[in-house]
């Protein structure tokens, strides 16, 4: 098993095919979307492939060391001009093919018009521990 990080809604990546802001959806569409994500996570818990997932707030800071005795540099809360990760999920799967398959499924969460969003997800493997020699 290997762990993969699925980064959701990575702004700065190509936009989703069905790219409509969520507050322009109908309440039913939002319910369907949230339900899809929840069912997806629940199913992976069932298969033993779910590790963790969290949603991230929209506001963040870029911070940089600015030299001895100086406060760190920040560029303040940012909105649409900077990269933003809306959330992530960690899965633990047998193969990279499975990770890609699941990411594809997650990207198909329904959006406006009940149609899949086709959003881009980034799939990143974790570094694992070095294999133990048992023989």
């Amino acid at each position, binding site marked *: 098993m290997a762990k993969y990080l699925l980064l959701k809604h990575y702004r700065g990546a190509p936009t989703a095919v069905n790219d409509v802001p969520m507050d322009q959806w109908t309440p039913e569409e*939002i319910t369907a979307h949230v339900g899809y994500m*929840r069912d997806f996570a629940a199913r992976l818990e069932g298969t033993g492939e779910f590790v963790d997932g969290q949603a991230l*707030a929209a*506001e963040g800071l870029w911070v940089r060391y600015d030299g001895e005795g100086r406060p760190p540099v920040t560029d303040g809360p940012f909105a649409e001009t900077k990269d933003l990760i809306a959330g992530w999920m960690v899965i633990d799967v047998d193969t990279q093919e499975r990770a890609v398959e699941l990411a594809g499924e997650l990207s198909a969460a329904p959006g406006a018009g009940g149609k899949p969003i086709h959003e881009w997800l980034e799939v990143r493997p974790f570094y694992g521990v070095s294999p133990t020699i048992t023989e």
Partner: protein
Amino acid sequence: MNEVMLRSLTPGVLGILVRRGADFAAAEDAVQDALVEAVRVWPADPPRDPKGWLVTVAWRKFLDATRADAARRRREDLLDEEPVPGPAPAVDDTLQLYFLCAHPSLTPSSAVALTLRAVGGLTTRQIASAYLVPEATMAQRISRAKRTVAGVRFDQPGDVATVLRVCYLIFNEGYSGDVDLAAEAIRITRQLSATIDHPEVAGLLALMLLHHARRAARTAPDGSLVPLAEQDRARWDTRSIAEGVEILQAALARDRLGEYQAQAAIAALHADAPAAAETDWVQIVEWYDELARLTDSPVVRLNRAVAVGEADGPRAGLAALAALDDALPRHTAVAAYLHERDGDLAMAARLYAEAAHRASNLAERDHLTRQAARLNALLR
């Protein structure tokens, strides 16, 4: 063997050890050892006096540990003169534990962790799971807190308000994992109210019971928030409401009003309304006025603006809101709600979307996004 019973005995046992002069951190370790021993021994051989048993075993563990330590410092003789372990005295020693755990030298998160551990008797693993942090992280947080209060001596009563704030913090964390922090906060505050006779302790307990009573109705099966007005009141816990109201009335009768009693009074007025439309908003506004006098908190004035909007109409609510800093959490959401009630749907939709962007948790964000979406669908 009853885990809840064991946990309810923990603070008393710990309090006795501390009063006998044990250092807090060492006493806490000794009590944990005694609890482990109890879990092992009691099923086959239950004691007649569980608390006395725990005190005896914990004191022995403490002496063993201290002796091992003291051997290096040649202090054994002194320890042999300590009082012999015996049954628990009738005096309640738990109060100083509350003061210790809520000591002003601790950060709020450390005070919460230490209270859950020492007064609530939760294991480090349970506290870690409730706060979604690794057990090792929580273990460090707790030992740091114990080191911070290690030298604190209690010769005068601590600040009740600080203890209540810590209990309220625990309550507001809600729950996750296998520990229900809201229920835990109620249990701890119940113990506190049995220990200390103070109208604000009763006020906080009443407030928690009244809020907790609505819990089942506050979320839909899919996890989304259900606002007060739309909650199914048949799902409110009437027993909890009755208990909260009774505790509150007894506290109010003593005529020493404080912020928790005032908040509980507002919660009681909501709990009392058979339907949302029958809510006594005029009286709620009066309680918010009391509360604003007691606390001068901008959050209270924000909530007051909502109540004014219900009692005197949305325009009056917006006027009350205009006097407040719009950087306050939920200020935008309140503005959106009042504009919607005033009929300005486009403005309300825009503000809901903005409020969703600023929301501090996922359920709130989804709820506000849904509100924006609902209005945008109407406007199309």
